[in-house]
């Protein structure tokens, strides 16, 4: 079983560590006095200017339209200049093998390991057979070909058995090799220094009172300046992603990030595009205020990685970038970040066209559809998926005209197809006739329908045409209160200039007119592929809607698939009718042993849930030997997290 919890709080969970939050006090104290952003920083999470002050002129500050002196024209892309060279090369150039260099390993004696263990470890890590290996005092001496020395020295200070090993040359190295080694010898130390340094920088630039991470003008940061990271584009390009990583590590979850960092200031960093800082969107997806002031962004393309990201962004600052001169600049910004309230310190006159009215009270009450136990593959936008499904289907059931008016527009399309060959649930003795005559005339199943004109006609476009088809279809009742009957995936998908949801919904419905009809099936199974977009007014717009109806097949397919790690299909895996079936059989065949039935049901429940026999029996006992109720009870307990770990025979995946 997946036991999938789709609580957003679990997303983006990271390593533990209190980081920035815990150090708020000291962060405040450590902050350099040379920055002028603090006073203008927002004090609350709502939109307000994140910088009212003029940016300090820095060496990296360039006028709009002007290229910074040092920056490459296409932005600072990560350069792999520090990549490890293959063994046998010096500075990446293959050298003729000539002579051997005596090396020594020290530090192993303190690690409670034997010299042979150390040698085995080193040979494995260095991927190099060591020559003439022998312990001499506290050292292990060995020889390596001259050309391999630089590579091997990269492993100096390598972690082993809870400590570090030193790997050093015994004698001074030839000058030709030294030149190749210099940068690499410093590297491991450099990496450690970098991590510490970035953490310090982050702490010093975090303003707890305003929940702002001020990464403006990093080139002037005394610690970074001293480090030389801004001297080269290559190290600079690495610095931002590394810093984002360090920042990410300071939080344990998304909520913590959201609560701790509301604003980020990236002003005056000579950014030509945002590729270097793109991971900011992953680290702080719920940022409300963002400043890119006084960089060198000229086109929207340079902001592409952040398109539709920062779904909660309320304020953006791009002043001092050439992009602000583009025609329709303000409109286009709002197309990309639909939650924007303010751009460049100027309010938009109209409320943001965000996906929906995100009131302060939160998502608001949803009709009951307890998704926690919903075994679905992928749900990228839980709130919207939940809200859409639990409002759409009841609307479709109760008032199709209102439904089409609410959810469809003139560009919406709908088509239905019928799969008459899908098997119906075996043992469904009550529903013996599947009548399709109400559906077939509209069915657009292209396996059967070969006439191009008919194929074209049966795809309805616009509310009127859609309603016309709907009116010919039987009335329906979808039970949105029973999660066991539903299974769906929801993926975010780019659609024209917006982000929508691609929903694939599998479930069942009842035809109320047929419920009372003797001998006629009243239940159907369906699959519906729906492309949903925000309608711009806080609601949903269905742009594409494909409905597939088939005979009722129950819901055990996805229950079995998701409740068990490897679903070996049980011989009779239909939980709901089996109860009736068993009872009926018992009536017809009074010889059937009730004990045998109970054992069967226990077996069924085990195969559906992975419960141990003891717990399965207990569960059935408590639910009056009703398999459906037992399944419900199991799912409920599992969803609440109170399922004892020893209740499951198989480990939860």
């Amino acid at each position, binding site marked *: 079983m997946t036991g999938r919890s789709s609580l957003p709080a679990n997303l983006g969970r990271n390593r533990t560590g209190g980081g920035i939050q815990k150090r708020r006090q000291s962060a405040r104290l450590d902050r350099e006095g040379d920055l002028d952003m603090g006073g203008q920083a927002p004090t609350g999470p709502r939109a307000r200017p994140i910088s009212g002050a003029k940016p300090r002129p820095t060496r990296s500050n360039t006028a709009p339209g002007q290229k910074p002196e040092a920056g490459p024209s296409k932005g600072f892309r990560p350069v792999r200049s520090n990549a490890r060279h293959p063994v046998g090369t010096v500075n990446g150039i293959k050298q003729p093998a000539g002579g051997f260099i005596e090396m020594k390993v020290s530090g192993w004696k303190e690690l409670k390991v034997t010299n042979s263990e150390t040698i085995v470890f080193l040979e494995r890590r260095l991927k190099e057979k060591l020559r003439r290996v022998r312990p001499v005092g506290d050292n292990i001496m060995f020889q390596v070909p001259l050309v391999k020395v630089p590579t091997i020295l990269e492993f100096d200070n390598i972690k082993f058995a809870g400590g570090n090993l030193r790997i050093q040359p015994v004698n001074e190295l030839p000058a030709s090799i030294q030149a190749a080694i210099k940068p690499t010898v410093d590297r491991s130390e450099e990496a450690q220094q970098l991590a510490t340094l970035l953490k310090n920088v982050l702490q010093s630039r975090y303003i707890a009172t305003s929940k702002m991470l001020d990464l403006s003008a990093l080139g002037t940061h005394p610690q970074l300046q001293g480090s030389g990271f801004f001297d080269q584009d290559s190290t600079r390009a690495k610095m931002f992603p590394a810093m984002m990583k360090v920042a990410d590590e300071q939080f344990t979850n998304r909520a913590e990030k959201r609560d701790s960092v509301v604003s980020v200031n990236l002003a005056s960093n000579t950014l030509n595009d945002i590729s270097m800082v793109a991971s900011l969107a992953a680290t702080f997806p719920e940022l409300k205020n963002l400043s890119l002031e006084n960089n060198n962004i000229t086109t929207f393309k340079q902001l592409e990685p952040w398109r539709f990201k920062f779904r909660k962004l309320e304020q953006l600052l791009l002043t001092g970038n050439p992009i602000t001169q583009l025609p329709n600049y303000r409109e286009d910004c709002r197309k990309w970040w639909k939650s924007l309230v303010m751009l460049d310190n100027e309010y938009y006159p109209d409320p943001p066209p965000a996906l929906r009215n995100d009131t302060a009270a939160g998502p608001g009450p949803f009709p009951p559809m307890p998704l926690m136990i919903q075994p679905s*593959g992928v749900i990228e936008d839980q709130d919207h998926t939940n809200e859409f499904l639990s409002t759409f289907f009841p609307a479709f059931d109760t008032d199709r005209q209102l439904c089409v008016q609410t959810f469809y527009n003139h560009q919406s399309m709908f088509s239905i*197809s019928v*799969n008459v060959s899908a098997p119906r649930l075996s043992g469904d003795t009550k529903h013996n006739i599947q009548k399709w005559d109400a559906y077939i005339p509209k069915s657009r*199943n292209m396996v059967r329908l070969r006439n191009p004109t008919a194929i074209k006609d049966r795809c309805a476009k616009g509310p009127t045409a859609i309603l016309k088809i709907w009116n010919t279809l039987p009335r329906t009742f979808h039970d949105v209160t029973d999660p066991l009957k539903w299974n769906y995936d929801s*993926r975010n998908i780019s659609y024209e200039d917006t982000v929508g949801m691609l929903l694939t919904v599998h479930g069942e419905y009842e035809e109320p007119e047929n419920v009372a009809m003797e001998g006629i099936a009243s239940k159907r199974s369906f699959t519906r592929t729906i492309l949903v977009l925000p309608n711009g007014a806080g609601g949903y717009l269905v742009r594409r809607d494909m409905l597939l109806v088939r005979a009722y097949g129950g819901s055990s397919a*996805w229950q079995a698939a998701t409740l068990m790690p490897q679903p070996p*299909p049980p011989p009779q895996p239909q939980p709901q009718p089996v109860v009736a079936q068993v009872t009926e059989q018992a009536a017809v065949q009074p010889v059937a042993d009730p004990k045998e039935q109970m054992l069967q049901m226990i077996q069924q429940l085990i195969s559906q849930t992975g419960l141990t026999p003891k717990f399965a029996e207990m569960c059935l006992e408590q639910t009056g030997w009703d398999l459906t109720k037992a399944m419900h009870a199991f799912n409920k307990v599992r969803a609440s997290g109170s399922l004892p770990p020893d209740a499951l025979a198989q480990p939860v995946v």
Partner: protein
Amino acid sequence: MADYTAVAEQFITYYYSTFDKNMPGLSGLYRPNSLLTFESTQTQGANDIAEKLVSLPFQKVEHQVATKDAQPIPGGGIVVLVTGALKVDDSPAPLNFAQTFILLPEGGSYYVSHDIFKLVYPA
């Protein structure tokens, strides 16, 4: 512009015959940003998707397409919904599936941007 229903039909024929006869050949239909949702797992990228499909626990597979429907989407893409049955190895009971594709145009041809597969009725 090619008729989208014709494209969808061609795609469906090609996809399932390749799936049944030469599964590794499917990788050409996906791109690095393609997403496969197979039952409850998701996989991204042509290589990983091909790997995932090839690793499915059966030797022999045969799809029988029962229904197909398609709608165009702006930008030349197509959304496709297929249902049918799946015969695996020598198991007599077919598995029933529903599968949704988003096809996007690329240089005169199409690739699979989304592929969402679900078994809807147990064996």
